[in-house]
């Protein structure tokens, strides 16, 4: 598109829209333009443009030094980012699939997460690790996981799951600013979704939950790709006369629990939706927070989790959709929850 055409045809207040992956790319470009310390490294992020096309034309714009192609060497890549970060740079690591963070866990968990604390504050690790998560692409069990709870369980890591293009940009900019290691988990199915993204370097602060929709009957907490699915479910429920609040924590660590607890106190019903397997998942933490707060006394029904099944992600399309929450299942679970009489 050209700006001229837009200006002629659209009112001045028209929302600027772009895809989620374009928003990520714009954040990286703006951060790199503003700060020489920021650079990106990862597998195939250069001329290839990234396995999911996120880095795109950045290689052409910023060159091979700052959009740095790496060998297939996740432990080395993340370690190099940790070292660069402690020595004054602001690296953004792209791990091609979040599953491959398993190759780099020592540097993420034992090094990046602990250095500031363990070394008595002597060093900081201002590093961002971005990685695509989730199922829905037919890539099977080693390319489809949602491992956010692992990272959220490690003190010293901040964990971000943007669910919209605007947050993909705003949260990434905030993550790059942050003097700590931040894991940014981007759902693959969101990369091609579009939405409004503000012009300029507007940050979405880490640690602020977003209330996506307000309704009096039910509180739905959802993360990542499930936020959109929860919003669709809420619209369908509204037609049946059920009004749901939908809350997107956006950052798993640090968690802004107050809006969740306030909402549950008002609605008395909590439904927690994640793609990851339910057992010891992030929503178990949300459930515990509700149970440890006075919101517990206001519950009209037991807390309900709607999660992925406790299985590896399978290949066949029917199997793949069967093991993670889908729209119909979310609507059905919400309807059931509303039918519970206290």
């Amino acid at each position, binding site marked *: 598109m050209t700006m001229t055409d837009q200006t002629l045809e659209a009112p001045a207040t028209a929302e600027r829209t772009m895809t989620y992956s374009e928003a990520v790319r714009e954040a990286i470009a703006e951060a790199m333009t503003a700060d020489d310390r920021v650079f990106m490294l990862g597998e195939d992020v250069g001329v290839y443009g990234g396995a999911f096309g996120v880095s795109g034309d950045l290689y052409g714009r910023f060159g091979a030094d700052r959009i740095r192609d790496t*060998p297939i060497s996740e432990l080395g*890549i993340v370690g*190099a980012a940790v*070292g660069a970060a402690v020595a004054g740079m602001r*690296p953004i690591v792209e791990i091609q699939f979040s599953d491959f963070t398993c190759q780099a866990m020592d*540097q993420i968990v034992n090094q990046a997460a602990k250095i500031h604390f363990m070394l*008595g504050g002597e*060093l900081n690790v201002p590093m961002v690790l971005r990685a695509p998560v989730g199922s829905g692409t037919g890539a099977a069990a080693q390319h489809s996981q949602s491992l956010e709870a692992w990272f959220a369980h490690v003190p010293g890591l901040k964990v971000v799951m943007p669910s919209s293009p605007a947050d993909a940009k705003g949260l990434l900019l905030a993550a790059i600013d*942050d003097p700590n290691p931040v894991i940014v988990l981007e759902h693959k199915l969101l990369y091609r979704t579009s939405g409004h993204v503000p012009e300029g370097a507007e940050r979405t602060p880490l640690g602020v939950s977003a209330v996506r929709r307000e309704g009096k009957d039910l509180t739905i907490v959802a993360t990542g790709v499930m936020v959109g699915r929860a919003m669709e479910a809420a619209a369908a429920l509204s037609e049946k006369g059920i009004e749901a609040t939908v809350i997107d924590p956006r950052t798993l660590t640090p968690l802004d629990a107050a809006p969740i607890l306030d909402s549950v106190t008002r609605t008395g019903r909590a439904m927690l939706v994640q793609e990851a397997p339910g057992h010891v998942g992030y929503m178990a933490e949300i459930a515990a927070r509700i149970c440890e707060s006075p919101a517990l006394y206001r519950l009209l029904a037991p807390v309900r989790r709607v999660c992925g099944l406790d299985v590896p992600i399978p290949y066949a399309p029917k199997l793949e959709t069967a093991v993670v929450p889908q729209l119909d299942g979310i609507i059905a679970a919400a309807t059931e929850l509303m039918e519970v009489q206290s």
Partner: protein
Amino acid sequence: MTTTQTTADPRVGDDPDKARHVLATMWRIRRFEEAVDDLFARGLMHGTMHLSIGQEGSATGSCLSLRTDDAITSTHRGHGHCIAKGASLERMMAELLGKETGYCRGRGGSMHIADTATGNLGANGIVAGGIPIATGAALAYKMQGLDRVVVSFFGDGASNEGAFHEALNLAAIWKLPVVFICENNKYGMSFSTEFSVAVAHIADRAAAYGMPGVTVDGNDVEAVNDAVSAAVDRARGGGGPSLVEAETYRWKGHSKSDKNLYRTREEIAEWRLKDPIVRFEKLVKERGTLSESEVQQIRDEAMQAIKHAVVAANQAPDARADDILDSVFAATTIVSEVTA
């Protein structure tokens, strides 16, 4: 493999100032480790520690090749590296005693001492954990246009970790100013390099990454300094990374629980005869670089410095727990940088 002669001129043992510095550093390391051993044995220090008695030559000879603003990463057996790079004995001892004035405010202990003022980017409790970090720091300095060099210390055991191989490859393809120093003390805990490595020398592994590899007698301070100086010069001049293997030996067990079941008393006794400190003292006296009275003075001063560090550290307040939750994340947006 042979020792590479280098730009370090005159050699350490011929230069009275360098010789004094080297001997003082080695004695400070030796006495520090002995004091730690003693405090632990008497129940006055808790946790665990990995002593580097017998390995003073490689830490000292290597760090002598570096400027203050050059950086190092170290290992679980890292007290010697910290001291050789210039760390405060008192703050180190305070850390090991769990004091607020310790390098890590009591949060890290023996295996996690970092000191940005002297370019120490941190010891590491994970074998090979510091090698990729050193590589990344070297990448940072190169991107920043600084002429700093990073030395990564690690042991023979670390050279069997994936992190070693990934980091050496990255450093080589990016021609980074980093020197990888493998302190081969013959054992990864109990497992001998005789069984853990199939190449004749760990330095041979450098060939796989297209970088120079050299094996030196790690108990010969001059040889270590020569080899590391050559590697540092090469790195600083844009020539890329090198691997230096320093063959040495730890006199003490791996850590506090070691019963030395995997090696003989004779082997230990044999290596004690190769004491890097005794050897260097003999050398400087023979060459007339230092007199016996000067040597004795250096020994006395090292002993006094350690005694002072123990006394001062013991008097320091215990580590505070009241702000521990605020210590997990850095609060400001200002990044610590290694400064000269």
